[in-house]
């Protein structure tokens, strides 16, 4: 049974409190074989407590499936990009390297790429994904578009991401401020900026890693 199209997944990183509940709950999903498919990213650990849960965005044009040489990554009719088919996956890591969001994970013990499949065993029978069930701040929300607009009047969902020249539309939505919504979330934009201003506080982790060589 396909996942109903009117139920969507919303990520609101500004609500994420970094509690790791989603990471732990993800293991409980039957289709994940006891492995967690979510990782909690720290945006800049030395400067902020902001965290972002990384789940699969289920792209319209999935880069992971495009680069798969073994035809192992498939998308079902409801737009869910599934874990690699076990008989086909050759554990080449192409998808792991290619995914702009960094979602696929190579399970070397099984020689199988596994990724977030929106808890397909649950969502295909009308349940919520595990992570959205447990998230205490509802940074991960699973529901209809009307529901999220009623619950978050100051945010709006966006499904367009920009990675350099690659534009990606996704099935999973990211919440952005409603008063000044960007046309697309420019993920790699921060890398293209001019060198950081001199008065910026140095990253204490990096500052201790590199010691300048004495001149002469």
């Amino acid at each position, binding site marked *: 049974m396909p996942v109903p199209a009117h139920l969507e997944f919303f990520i609101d990183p500004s609500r994420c409190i970094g509690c790791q509940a989603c990471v732990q709950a993800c293991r409980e999903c039957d289709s994940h074989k006891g492995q967690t498919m979510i990782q909690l990213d720290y945006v800049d650990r030395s400067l902020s407590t902001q965290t972002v849960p990384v789940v699969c965005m289920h792209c319209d*044009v999935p880069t992971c*499936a495009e680069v798969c040489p073994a035809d192992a990554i*498939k998308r*079902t*009719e409801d737009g869910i990009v599934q874990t690699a088919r076990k008989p086909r996956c050759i554990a080449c890591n192409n998808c792991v390297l290619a995914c702009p969001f960094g979602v696929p994970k190579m399970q070397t013990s099984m020689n199988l790429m596994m990724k977030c499949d929106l808890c397909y065993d649950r969502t295909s029978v009308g349940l919520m994904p595990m992570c959205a069930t447990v998230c205490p701040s509802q940074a991960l929300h699973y529901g209809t578009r009307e529901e999220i607009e009623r619950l978050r009047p100051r945010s709006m969902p966006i499904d367009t991401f920009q990675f350099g020249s690659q534009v990606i539309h996704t099935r999973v939505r990211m919440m952005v401020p409603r008063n000044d919504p960007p046309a697309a979330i420019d993920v790699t934009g921060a890398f293209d900026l001019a060198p950081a201003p001199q008065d910026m506080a140095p990253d204490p982790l990096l500052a201790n890693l590199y010691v300048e060589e004495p001149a002469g």
Partner: protein
Amino acid sequence: MTPDDRERAQPHWRRDFPIDWPEAQWVARREFVKFLMPVSLAFAVGQVWLLWRGWRRASAPAPAPARIARVSDVPIGGAMLFEYPAGSPSRILVRVDESTFVAYEQQCTHLTCPVLPAVEREELICPCHHGVFELRTGRPIAGPPRRPLARVTLEVRDGWVQATGIEARTV
């Protein structure tokens, strides 16, 4: 059409290996017919070949009678292998009692393993998959084989056991 117009950049083999599962599972009528025609043709040709082979076998001349063993050389309950006609797959001669000899092709009709005589139980046993044949008739009584062993017709004359022909049987 994809958002950033990359449909055109897709390699041509992508049409044969689509990412979307419903497309990948789709079997077009033309593809199915392309598969069906050669397969049914192969079956039809196979039928003709089987008929031709059966006809050729039936019309082959019977091998000339040949002496294969002295009666006194085979003890009661004993067995020996022989080739009839010379160069054929090995066949087995068994002396059941004082005056009864039987001879069969030694290949089990299941997967052509050599069968072994168990004279005290009046059976021929194939050790590969525990196929069992009746010793006196060569008919299968247990295990995977379903067809009887090909029998060599025998004649005892002047103290010699003589093979006079091969009786290939399907039932």
